[in-house]
Structure formats: C-alpha cells, structure tokens
C-alpha cells in the first residue's frame, strides 16, 4: 500500500534515535546511484530520467519479494515501450544466490546488488519488499512497503504512464 506522510511526533522521536535514516517519502527526490548489474553492466539511476522507474528492493530469501518478480518481468515487457523501467536492487548478502536464482528464472530488467549505505540513502530498507515508483523528474510518486497489491500497483503505474507519456 502507499504510505502516507508520517506523523510529526514520529519525526520528533526519530531525533532521539542513534542515527537511523529517515524513510524516503512520496514527493522526495530519489538519490542517484551507479551500480553494476549481474552481468557487469553499469546501471545509473539518473540515466533513466524521463522514464517511470519501478525500483524494487528485494532478496532471494524474501518470499513476498519472489512472488512479485514474475509480475515485474511481465510489466517490463508490456510497458517498457510506454516508458516504464524496472530496476531490481537485491539486498542479499551474497551475489551468488541472486545469480543462481536469476540464471534459472531470468527477469526482463537489470538487477544490481544493494548494501547498507545504499539502503540508508533511500531512508533505510528495513523490511522487504520495498518498491518505489519514481517519476520522470526523479521524484518518488508511490511507495509500497511489504507485499504489494500487484493489481493496484499495475493500475497506478498505468495511470502514471498515461499521464506522463501519452
């Protein structure tokens, strides 16, 4: 589901914490990054500016994450020509488990390896899956924490594609 703005009290309380990152919210600009994908090709987020980005933090050990991969693969094929770009960020500790899974069941979009610093730049990836829709200007327009309602997400991204690219 799409998170709403968090309460001011939560923000105030967070100041008491020992540096935990603030969650990246809808309306905020997504931080740029460059990472190599599983085949070694460089993936830079800002290079996709102008497209609707679906940025999916996931891991092979996360069952709800795995359930989402076939849909994302299908969407990249169906809506890629309309301006959608899916990018997967694996939070697995080991790249080998990701390679093995994707070798058996390829996806239609690049997957890069994430780490704690990258997660912190996105406000902390403290539970999976986490999926962000990022508009052509690089702003987060939807945020889905946990297993997403995929038909609803598809409806949202179709609307966004229709608004911005047609």
């Amino acid at each position, binding site marked *: 589901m799409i998170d709403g703005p*968090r309460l001011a*009290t*939560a923000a105030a*309380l*967070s100041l*008491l*914490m*020992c*540096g*935990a*990152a603030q*969650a990246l919210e809808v309306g905020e600009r997504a931080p740029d990054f460059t990472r190599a994908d599983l085949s070694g090709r460089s993936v830079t987020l800002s290079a996709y500016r102008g497209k609707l980005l679906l940025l999916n933090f996931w*891991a092979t*050990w*996360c*069952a*709800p*994450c*795995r*359930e*989402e*991969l*076939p*849909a994302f693969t*299908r969407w990249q094929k169906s809506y890629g020509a309309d301006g959608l770009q899916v990018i997967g960020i694996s*939070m*697995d*500790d080991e790249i080998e488990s990701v390679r093995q*899974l994707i070798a*058996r*069941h390829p996806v239609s979009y690049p997957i890069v390896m*994430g*780490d*704690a610093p990258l*997660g*912190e730049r996105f406000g*902390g*990836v*403290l*539970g*999976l*899956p986490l999926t962000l829709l990022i508009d052509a200007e690089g702003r987060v327009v939807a945020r889905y*924490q*946990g*297993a997403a309602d*995929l*038909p609803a997400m598809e409806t949202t991204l179709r609307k966004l594609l229709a608004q911005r690219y047609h």
Partner: protein
Amino acid sequence: MTPQDPKSRYVIAAAWWLVAALGPAISAAQPAESVPAASLIEPLALASLLKETPAAKQPLLLQVGFRKLYDQAHIPGSEYAGPTSTPAGLDALRERVAHLPKDAAIVIYCGCCPWSHCPNIAAAYDLLQKLGFTRVKVLHVAENFGSDWVDKGYATATQP
C-alpha cells in the same frame, strides 16, 4: 476468483513460478508461527524492558536475520548472529551461545519481512531450544523492523 480475474492471474503466475523455482527452499523454511505464543515478546514490551533495566541486567539481544538489515538499523546493544535460515548462520548462533549458562536470558529478533514469511526466526528459536536454553524470548515483528521498531521511535543504532 476465476482464472479470468486479474488477481487470479497474479496468484497463478506467482504460484507456478515459486513452485518451479523455489519449492525445496520454501518447504525447508520453518514458519514463524511455530514459535509458541508464550515465548513471544511484543516490541513495546521489549522497548520498555530495555529502558527500565540496567545494562548489566539486560538480556542478550541477538539479531538472527540478514547482515545488510542489521548494518542499517538494530536494537542498541544487540549483536549479529545470523542469518539462521542458513547452516552458516545457525553455526554463528550456536557459537555465540556456546559458553552461556542455559538459563541466560536471550532475546532473538529478525524483522526482515512480515512475520509469517520470516525464514530465520523459527530456525533460531528451535536451535536454542535444542541447545537447552530455558529463557529465550522472540521479538514479534509483525511487518518488519522498520515499521514495528524504528518507526515507533524505539531506540535504534546503526553502528555495530
């Protein structure tokens, strides 16, 4: 729900993919629901306990999930001992508690994913039971560590 429904397309596609790709791995994972309710502790209760208890008397806190999540945020004073969904992680946990008395107070937690999907917590609990530990509590993280701990404003650390 019929095969023509949009939702059923997702369910069927995901189920087929999961069975084909990951059937053995999934069936091997122990469900978090197998942890007895009496062994669970809710986040608010643990946060209060830690706040009110002198450091020397606090339970041993072990994060048995994934390193990249621990590195981003964890309960202050907790140690990393996982991931217990893997043999290496179970060895790490076994080694960490090897010299502890069996009545040591231990709290384990993960929070990688929604409770019903956590691949680590039940495996960690079962190991500690098999090793004979009698005062093990399991932090019940319903959604994930971010939503159920960090966003609640409970004390959080980012450095090991």
